[in-house]
């Protein structure tokens, strides 16, 4: 895929979250899209980890990642990131704190990223920056809300249906072990539920 096409996709992704009012806004967003750099991640590679001290805003062009949140010494699968979605450590980008979570590649991925410094410069100096920051927080709140719907379902089948509603390709992208952890059910229960769904 050409880089120009990547930047178009990043620009489109950004424009879905920022209200553009003038052609100047369009141009400002396009120049931001061009400041992202693209790299490839293999399964198991880290998008960020607990010792990362400089955050980045990532846009997933392909593949999938899982974010794990540390609770004491135990890590819990918090959420997934897949194609055409943004991913970032809230602690690093929003709170200037050490990351309490880490994100790992589950399926080989191509990711466009912009360093927090370049992003901060944009957020502070460009008129659209404030809107983008607000949008990123609201986007994250909405993701948590959607994920909470899944976990409020009291049985495995409904949790799987709710997860599919949020991520239509979740069953193709996410290994079963991670999916069971994510849904808070045992692997046996996941397989039973998937079988029941397959049998209608």
């Amino acid at each position: 895929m050409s880089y120009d096409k990547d930047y178009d996709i990043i620009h489109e992704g950004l424009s879905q979250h920022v209200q553009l009012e003038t052609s100047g806004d369009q141009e400002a967003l396009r120049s931001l899209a061009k400041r992202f750099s693209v790299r490839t991640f293999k399964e198991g590679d880290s998008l960020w980890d607990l010792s990362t001290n400089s955050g980045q805003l990532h846009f997933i062009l392909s593949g999938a990642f899982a974010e794990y949140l540390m609770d004491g010494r135990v890590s819990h699968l918090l959420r997934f990131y897949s194609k055409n979605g943004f991913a970032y450590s809230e602690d690093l980008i929003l709170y200037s704190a050490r990351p309490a979570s880490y994100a790992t590649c589950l399926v080989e991925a191509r990711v466009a990223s912009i360093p927090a410094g370049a992003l901060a410069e944009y957020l502070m100096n460009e008129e659209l920056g404030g809107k983008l920051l607000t949008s990123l927080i609201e986007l994250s709140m909405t993701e948590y809300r959607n994920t909470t719907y899944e976990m409020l379902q009291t049985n495995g089948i409904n949790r799987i249906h709710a997860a599919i509603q949020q991520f239509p390709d979740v069953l193709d992208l996410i290994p079963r072990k991670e999916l069971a952890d994510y849904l808070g059910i045992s692997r046996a229960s996941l397989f039973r539920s998937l079988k029941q769904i397959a049998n209608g």
Partner: protein
Amino acid sequence: MAKSLEQLVYDFFRGLPAYTTDMEDAVKAIIENFDQPLIKKKGAILTELAPPNKDFWFLCDGFLKEIYKNPFMNEDALFNFIPPASIFVNEDSLFYNKRPQHYYKAYTDVTIASLSNEKFQELKNKYPAIIKLYLSGTAEIQKNRRSRLLMLRMSNTQDKIDWVRDQRGDLYKIMDRVTLAQYIGVSRASLYRAFDKKGKSQF
């Protein structure tokens, strides 16, 4: 004596991590622009938040249930339980200009007050600090959601109950068992079994 709306809103903003003393004028302006509080009886649905309301609401007193239509259960279900001194909004309307999927119901008698979106926009232009307060308030809600999500992912019902008791004692003390079961995402039967197993009551 119960605190006034002014004092409650002031305490709320002063409690935000982003608050600094130079924001005091902005906070005073917000307080002055709140409408008069309304009282709603236990069980009432807050029709004031019907679409397309995009105002910012402050729960001065009492507890609210935030309810959504669960498409997998064909019934309305609890999404969140809101304690006093909280801000609540129609997220779908405010963020995405969509018809809200949630509504609010008074769990106890409640007192609520609103700051209209129009006034918020005016104040935001006049006091740039308001955007920092908005982001800080939103970030706090986000942190609470992240924290609750960890509890919801716990596979053991007793661990979930313990989490609510330890982390959200303010809610645990007031929720009935049906509400508690919905809040932690388990069936009523599972919740009752967990209490029976420990031989303990909720309160």
